[in-house]
Every structure is written in C-alpha cells, then in structure tokens.
C-alpha cells in the first residue's frame, strides 16, 4: 500500500486546533508510517497539491479564504472540517451580528489603544473580509466534521487514524462528539 498524502490548512481560526493536533505527541509517528504530511501552516506558501485527506481549521472570513477552500476542495479526496470555527463559525462568526464597517471601526478607528486618529488599513495586498463569516459547509462539500473548541487530540488522532486505515470514523459511537 502506497503512503497517503495528508495536509492541514489554517483559515479563519486561532490555530488552537493545530495546537491540539500537535498534542497527539508521539502518535505522529504512527501517522507518519501511513502518510506523508505534504502541507501545513508552517511550510512555505506553495499551493495545495493533490492530497488524500485535508484537515481544515477555521471558517471562511475573507475572499482569500474562499479562493483557498474552493482550491482545497478540488485537490482533496476527503475534506475534514477541524474544530468549531470550521463547523459552526463559532467565535469568528460572532462579528456576524454587526455591519462590517462597524467591525472595522471598532478595531481600527475607535480602538481605545489608538494614540491618535485611527484609519482602516486598505492596502491592495491585504485580504478583503467578507460581509459575513460562514462555516465550511456553506461554501463547499465537507466529508467529515470534528467539532470542538478545540477538538481533543485523542479525537483528532482517532479520526486521522481511521481515515488512514480506510475506515470511516464515527464520533457519536465512540462518544467523542463535543462542542466548545
């Protein structure tokens, strides 16, 4: 059996899910026996190659995230939404109750830490925030979800290990379903 290719991606999230992924500790060696990790947030910015499994942390908050997730969907055989932000939009979605302008003004113009008058950064290289934050399944087909903020390392390892051994994981059966 040839080795599978896996990748992890960090969209609109706090990277806590990746921290939790790292908490699988030495079990990463079991993963490495079965798969090559071809891309993760700490490697250089090449586009995602074709992979068997991709774990996506975070929600879709900007035009860049949208472009990225559409590309990921084309490249990945199995797309796994990792963590509450990817599954429910969670904390990143808390700005959805407000107008985008109000959000920007709160952060940059009226911020209490401003020494003098603030202004909203507007460089063409910067990503453009979307009006509303959406979870992954609103823009692409998601094959599996791991809710949790963050999900347990045990849960992440369980899902990864099942997929790598060509089995479909079941979170509710093993009582690993959790939010928050």
């Amino acid at each position, binding site marked *: 059996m040839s080795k599978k290719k896996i990748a992890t991606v960090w969209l609109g999230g706090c990277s806590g899910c990746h921290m939790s992924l790292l908490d699988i500790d030495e079990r990463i060696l079991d993963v490495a026996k079965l798969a090559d990790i071809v891309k993760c947030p700490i490697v250089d910015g090449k586009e995602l190659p074709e992979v068997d499994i991709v774990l996506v942390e975070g929600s879709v908050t900007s035009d860049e995230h949208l472009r990225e997730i559409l590309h990921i969907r084309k490249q990945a055989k199995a797309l796994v939404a990792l963590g*509450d932000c990817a599954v429910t*939009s*969670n904390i990143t*979605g808390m700005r*959805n*109750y407000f107008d985008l302008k109000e959000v920007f003004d709160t952060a940059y113009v009226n911020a209490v830490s401003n020494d003098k008058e603030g202004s909203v950064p507007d460089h063409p290289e910067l990503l453009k925030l979307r009006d509303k934050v959406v979870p992954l*399944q609103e823009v692409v087909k998601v094959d599996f*979800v791991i809710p949790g*903020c963050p999900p347990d390392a045990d849960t992440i390892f369980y899902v990864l290990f099942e997929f790598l051994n060509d089995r479909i994981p079941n979170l509710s059966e093993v009582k690993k379903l959790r939010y928050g």
Partner: protein
Amino acid sequence: MPKISVTIDDKKLDVDVGKTILEVCKENGIEILTMCHLKGLTDVGACRLCLVEIEGVNKLLSACTTKIAANMIIRTKTEKIKRYQRITSELFFAERNHVCSVCVANGKCDLQKLGYKTEMNHIRYPYLFPECNVDTSHPWYVLDHNRCIMCTRCVRACGEVEGAHNWNVMNRGYQVRIISDFDTPWGESVTCTSCGKCVHACPTGAIWPKAIVQGQLEKKPEIIGELVEKRKMNL
C-alpha cells in the same frame, strides 16, 4: 385507581389513567428526550423533543402534554422521531447565538447534551445571528438572550412555584423574547424576589449567577420539583 393497558415500544404495560405519556414512560424506564419539561412545573409542549408516534394518529404528538388512553400503541424511538429530534436541536442552535466555547454553561449545558444525544455534529440550516441583549442589571444574576431556547421553564418556575411572575414572554416567531415585568431591566423589577429559581430552572447559559466563572456553573433544576413535593406534605 383503575388501570388501562397500553403498548409502548412493543412493551405491554398496565398503567394508571390520567397520566401523560411522558410520565408513564419515565415510570417504566423508557427514555424520552425533553428540554422544556421540568418536574414540578406545568407541561407546555414548547420544545417538541418528546414527540411520539401513536398508531392511528397521523401526526406526532408531544408526550408531555398528551394523556395516555386505553389501547394506545406508542412508539418513541422510530427513525422519523430521531430525525425530527436532530432537526429540532439543530434549529435551537441556528436560531440564536449559541457559541459554546465562550458560554458560561459550557460543559454543563442541557442543550449541548441534547446535541450529543441526537448525534448532531453540524448544523444544516443557515444561522440567523439575531442581535440579542444581555441584561446584567440584576445585582446577582444575568439574563443572556443569546443562549435562550424559549423553553419557558423560568417563566413557569417564577409564576407557579415562587408566585412572583416576574418573567413573561414577548413577541412571536424569531423575535420572541423572555421579558422581566413589562420589558424593563431585570434589576428594576418590582416583582422579582431574587429567589434564584429561574436560574436553576434554566437548562442553558441564558440565566446564570454573576458569582461564577466558565466551567463552574452548577445548576440544580431538581430543586423545583422537590419544593413542590415538600409543599404538598401536611406537616
């Protein structure tokens, strides 16, 4: 008391007349999901989780408000019911802003537990993201509309057990809200006795005491039923 025979989940039972399907199921160890039911309070059938199938009735009926009748054939765990229960729990989450990770009730919440029981792993409906107020005007307690599921357990605990009737319900549909007195800040209420029964009756993080931090919320909803029982005693 006269007995009648019914069949619940293919089990033949002889039960007392005058009871609800939910009461009969509880007495016989048949698990039924509930949110708005609380022992000691009048049942209102608000949450629609305890729906059961009754042979000959072409719609699902709530077990908490339907009285048991002779020869009823009731099913509580069909695929249809399970599907509806999952839809209901998803709609709870989609209707208001239930952000578990920053909620004071995280890990101690009946709504979370309901999600696990109905195997809800994501929500298939668009979130409404309504703008909800948080009323912190009461010296000891907080009312957070973001986490409210409109089970009205607080309304009934306040009206029926405490007798203060501080809480009530305003508006309809997705604009429905719990209100204190005539929609005035809770801290200014002239009817609230600050007894805390609503705090314990609330199944989520919608009403909670200020003196706690996340993960330490301890609610004892069973005290409502115990109080009601104690009052019936002739001491």
